[in-house]
């Protein structure tokens, strides 16, 4: 009755669960905070928190991501002078949730002030980082004339999250998989590195995951 047709560029729920588990394992080895959120009667999803400190000083070229903290601010030696405004410390929460409808993972994210917990708008998130997040484009539309990024209710939590519309995912992934050697079992990683570009210069996964 619930039928799963394996079209090109799609992922089955089983594969998702399997690849998500191996990703979390790898992340643990690399010391990166990807977790699998599981609850009774609810589909499991991948989750990661990224602490974005607003930039006051010029950014270093290499962004340290291994500790899960994207610190765009140079470490101030004389802490008294420029410790970033506590209000401007923002937590970016990223979820990868499997959609049975689209038969692919969907990226959900939200941002809030680390201190007050108040939601931060996309513009607020962009402005918090020096030079912004240039690829986080609210005006972009998909090939099906859908807002590329739009607020949606989180399928599990029911609260507002931004999400990337999945209508193009299968198409893009099909192309990506056909162009990648040894793509087996790496759908999720490839997909994360694809959709994760919207947070550039913040990276959700990096090359070590592929080893």
């Amino acid at each position: 009755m619930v039928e799963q047709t394996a079209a090109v560029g799609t992922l089955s729920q089983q594969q998702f669960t399997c690849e998500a588990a191996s990703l979390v394992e790898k992340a643990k080895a690399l010391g990166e905070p990807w977790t699998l959120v599981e609850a009774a009667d609810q589909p499991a999803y991948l989750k990661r928190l990224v602490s974005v400190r607003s930039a006051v000083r010029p950014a270093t070229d290499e962004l340290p991501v291994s500790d899960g903290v994207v610190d765009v601010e140079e470490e101030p030696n004389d802490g008294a002078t420029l410790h970033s405004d506590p209000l401007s410390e923002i937590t970016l929460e990223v979820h990868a949730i499997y959609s049975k409808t689209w038969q692919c993972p969907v990226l959900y994210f939200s941002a809030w002030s680390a201190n007050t917990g108040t939601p931060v708008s996309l513009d607020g998130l962009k402005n918090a980082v020096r030079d912004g997040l240039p690829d986080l484009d609210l005006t972009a539309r998909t090939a099906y004339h859908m807002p590329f990024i739009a607020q949606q209710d989180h399928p599990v939590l029911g609260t507002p999250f931004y999400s990337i519309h999945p209508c193009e995912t299968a198409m893009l992934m099909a192309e990506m998989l056909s162009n990648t050697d040894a793509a087996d079992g790496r759908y999720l990683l490839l997909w994360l590195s694809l959709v994760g570009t919207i947070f550039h210069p913040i990276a959700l996964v990096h090359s070590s995951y592929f080893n």
Partner: protein
Amino acid sequence: MQGAIDETVAERLWDGQVPLRISVHPADAAALGVHSKSLSLYLSVHRFSYLTLIATDVRRFFADADGGNARLGEVDDADIWFECKGEPLKWHYPVGLLADMTTAANAAIPIAPLPWHVTVRFLNFPADKLLRGHSESMLSMTSDAFMSMIKEADFMRNGNIKKVMGLSKQDQTQLWESFAAHRFRDFWNVNAQLVAGGSEGVNGGGSYPRFVPMRVYVAGCAVVQEPVSPVDGESDHEYTLGEILSNILPRYYSSIPGGQVSRRSPNGTGEVTTFPAAVPILHGIEVPPDTPLVWLSRNCSYPDNFLHVVLRF
């Protein structure tokens, strides 16, 4: 199974209305200096409509009734929100769905008292609970959400969005505009092209959709949206709503009339308890469980092409 529309049902659903009593929240009334606190707006709202479509009128009513309250007159439409019994109401859900959810949540009273009392809020938008609109673009936000649902439904039915994208630009625009203007025939002239028939190549005649666009709402749980096929591929048996619900939500629903379901109690003790089976509510009525899903989807979907079924206990 031909893709014809049951116009009697469609038109009746189209004209369904919910009586609303809207009043200003006391906290906002105090903060904005609204004098006539006890004043209520009585409004019969189409079940298919959205709260964002009445927000401006509601604000104007209270601003005028209050002898031209300037501060109320300046409130941004994106800051207006509604709540019922302290719960924010999602503006991107049809009003009828909201009414059904409210009724279902109140298990003690099987028939909700009418008119439905809703509080309008002008301050403290709960951005952690409601999708936040942009200033002056609430209408386009609502239309975006509406079209997004239609496209998702198209994808579920056909495995692609070709039907919607295949509509002429004018038809795509007409879909939303005739809906917003509540013009039944204009809307259905376009909508029939989407809901009638099924995907090509499936089941020979192409009469069945791949999956049925349906969402099931259970109080306190995440929205259930499963890829539901309306027909048994082997026996050509058309599934009924009851069969589908007992299949995807066996813990809440049983297709046996008056049957019971058993599930672990939510308090986490692991105890298995039995409960009376839930009743599926759609458009304010209890849907007979033997209604074929494919018929239901074609004729009883909301204008956003989804069946929004609420389970009442």
